[in-house]
């Protein structure tokens, strides 16, 4: 930080008209300001990448020194096209003629956000206990195996019951897969990051084996490693009719948010999780069984991941799934949980934001030919910047909280002087 922002605060005489400036400082040093700053930085980086790969911009930059206006026009057109498409693909399509078509992007956003919210909660809950759940992929795949097997392995169950059984099976399988990591951490001290990463691959190859072996998960008569389609009786029905992709998984994810909020903030189990997260030694002294809490929190996280995995099988990919059924959501969930500050409500909004990015990114790829991976670049940059608030504050010249405290102290001392 440069000294120019600090010197007025420390040297200025204490006066009542500083109140507004102090208030502004408080806001600028706060977390929301950092989040906005991170978003801006990430979007700038994304814009640079779009500009770099846009053929018109590159062409026009060839004669930049002769006619700089051309480059700027091309730049503006590329940016406008990309971000316009992003918004039209994720929130509101103002070019469509009917209301259904106009609102469809928003529904796509909800659909994409559904597994992100559930999986993000799975990471957030373990975060609150001071543990990393990098094992979203494995837990989702385990859930997909279980939900898929109950789905097309046990035919003849009527609609709502079959669906509920599938979801429960998925959540249980996820809880089991997560519970292994938690149990190993609790009983042997194995680092949960390594354990969950390894379990990701064990789950992945287990699914590959099941998919490649006739008589297990492989669709009968198919030479490809793909499962049979999910039967109608086990599918999540559409929420607002067939014209929208969003299904009943979305309200289910909202229910999970409420459940996690209650679990973490109102239940005694959640209190033990948070106590272990704050200080495991103090928690042990207070009589909390840390090993038990570690295992259980991983089971809860795994069950939420399992919910996301089940939603994939029962809602998103119902025509039979492959080993890519997790769709990278297990890793996206980490960024969702970080952006949401590991708070259930924060995860909800972060999941909606990333769901919108995902929906808009696909539209951007289809409409503007910009690879959808730009979304994961922007997402990871947002998280990286949010995790390092001092960096964002330094770039935007926002006041640092430590300087704020120093300024406040200096002001108080000065006031004392004048009182005397």
């Amino acid at each position, binding site marked *: 930080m440069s000294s120019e922002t600090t010197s007025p605060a420390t040297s200025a005489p204490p006066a009542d008209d500083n109140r507004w400036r102090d208030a502004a400082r408080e806001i600028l040093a706060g977390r929301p300001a950092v989040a906005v700053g991170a978003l801006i930085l990430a979007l700038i980086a994304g814009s640079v990448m779009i500009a770099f*790969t846009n053929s018109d911009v590159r062409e026009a930059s060839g004669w930049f020194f002769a006619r700089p206006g051309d480059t700027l026009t091309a730049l503006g057109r590329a940016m406008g096209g990309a971000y316009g498409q992003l918004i039209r693909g994720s929130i509101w399509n103002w070019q469509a003629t009917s209301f259904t078509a106009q609102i469809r992007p928003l529904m796509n956003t909800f659909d994409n956000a559904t597994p992100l919210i559930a999986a993000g909660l799975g990471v957030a809950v373990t975060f609150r206990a001071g543990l990393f759940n990098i094992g979203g992929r494995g837990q989702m795949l385990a859930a997909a195996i279980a939900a898929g097997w109950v789905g097309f392995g046990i035919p003849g169950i009527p609609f709502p019951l079959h669906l509920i059984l599938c979801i429960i099976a998925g959540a249980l399988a996820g809880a089991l897969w997560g519970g292994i990591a938690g149990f190993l951490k609790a009983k042997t001290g194995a680092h949960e990051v390594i354990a969950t990463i390894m379990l990701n691959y064990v789950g992945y190859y*287990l699914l590959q084996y099941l998919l490649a072996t006739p008589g297990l998960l492989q669709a009968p008569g198919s030479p490809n490693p793909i499962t049979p389609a999910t039967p109608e009786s086990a599918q999540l029905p559409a929420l607002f009719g067939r014209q929208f992709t969003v299904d009943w998984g979305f309200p289910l994810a909202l229910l999970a948010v409420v459940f996690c909020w209650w679990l973490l903030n109102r239940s005694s189990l959640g209190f033990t999780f948070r106590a272990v997260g704050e200080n495991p030694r103090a928690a042990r002294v207070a009589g909390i069984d840390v090993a038990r809490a570690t295992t259980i929190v991983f089971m809860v996280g795994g069950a939420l991941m399992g919910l996301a995995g089940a939603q994939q099988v029962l809602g998103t990919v119902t025509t039979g799934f492959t080993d890519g059924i997790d769709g990278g959501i297990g890793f996206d969930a980490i960024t969702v949980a970080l952006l949401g500050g590991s708070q259930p409500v924060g995860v909800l909004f972060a999941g909606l934001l990333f769901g919108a990015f995902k929906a808009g990114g696909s539209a951007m790829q289809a409409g503007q030919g910009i690879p959808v*991976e730009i979304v994961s670049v922007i997402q*990871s940059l947002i998280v990286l910047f949010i995790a390092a608030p001092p960096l964002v504050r330094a770039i935007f010249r926002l006041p640092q909280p430590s300087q704020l405290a120093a300024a406040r102290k200096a002001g108080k001392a000065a006031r004392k002087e004048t009182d005397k």
Partner: protein
Amino acid sequence: MSAVTVNAAALSVEAPIGHRTIDKRSYKTPLILTGVTVLLAVLLLASPRPGSTTFTLATAQDAVQIPQAIVPGMAFAWVCMIGAALLTLAAAWRAWSYAKLPGWALALFALVAIAAFLGWAGAGAQGHINVVSLIANAVLVAIPLVFGALGGVIGEKAGVVNIAIEAQLLMAAFTGAVTGSLTGNPWAGLCAAILSSALVGAVLGVFAITYRVEQVIVGVVLNVLVAGITTFLFSAWLATDSSRLNNTLTVRFPAVGIPLLDGIPIIGPALFRQSIIVYIMYVAVAAVWFALYRTRWGLRIRAIGEHPQAADTVGIRVNVMRYGAVIIAGAIVGIGGASYTLVSNPSFNREMTAGFGYIALAAVIFGNWNPVRAAFAGLLFGFAINLQQVLGVIGSPVPSQFMLMLPYVVTLLAVAGLVGRSRAPAADGVPYIKE
């Protein structure tokens, strides 16, 4: 096990203070060997495979031509099994007499166990098992694993957990491919790969050391970020002119035989008729070991990873050294990443590292944070991955997925303390705040 009775006299002040060592019998090694032997025996008994196994032991270019060895598969496997059983007994006897089994005996056990497995798997198969190419390809597969593990060891010894090995490998593979294609020079590609991977290491350093962000988070996010950037550029830029931008077919490092050494039967052509990157790998393993355990720099690196406060009080600049460590580690990982596009493949492809960075991380832990052991763990994992491909070709009875799963299961058991003892540096992953 340690029923040590301490009498009152020993505790009294007058008693002389004696140094006492308590010997313990550790049955871990024989138990593991027994487990492997029993598992193999069950396999042989449960599904006997008639027919003979053909081992090819030389390549066409070799000076010494060893003829193909055709052995009866099951008999060969059982002979190897007897060897394995004898070694297990030896391990038990050594453990009973408070000693450890020497390393060469463990290596021998691994060899006979693998030979038994190959003899069984190849029995009656159509194809033959080419031992030379089995080892040679295992080394080839293991290049990114070994370099990744070396980089991981350096970072973690200095107290910085590097989950971003995957990102560094991918970044290096990408820049190696682009620079190599544009310049037509593999060395330029290698340099670019090293620089870009070191850059990822520097970014890791900025966030993990200066801004003290949780290192696991930085690593995971960097993996996503680099996968996104490289795939984006691959689709939006490389794909537009792939013959000019992404074509290292003629640029790649050729295999060069080392005179004399490549004349050794079997292992000569396998280990010493490789590309220059493999020779760099052999040197790098020794160099990293020497640097960490025999130089002042290495002592300081290990000090800041174990107890940064103590290191700081004697005047070591902890965070400066950590920056140096992550950047050097990144450069080393970059050599491994370059091997994807400058040795193994003729072009870059999206997410071509396919989780090898995580296997390298597993090798770091399985190798107990020791560069030589981690390198051997990397080779072992490379062997398992390659063996699966070979068995797929000759038509093996073991599902390939379980072979691929093996490195991860073994590492899971290792971190759980079931296989050997794994202990990370004390300050691993803890940012240092100077007071």
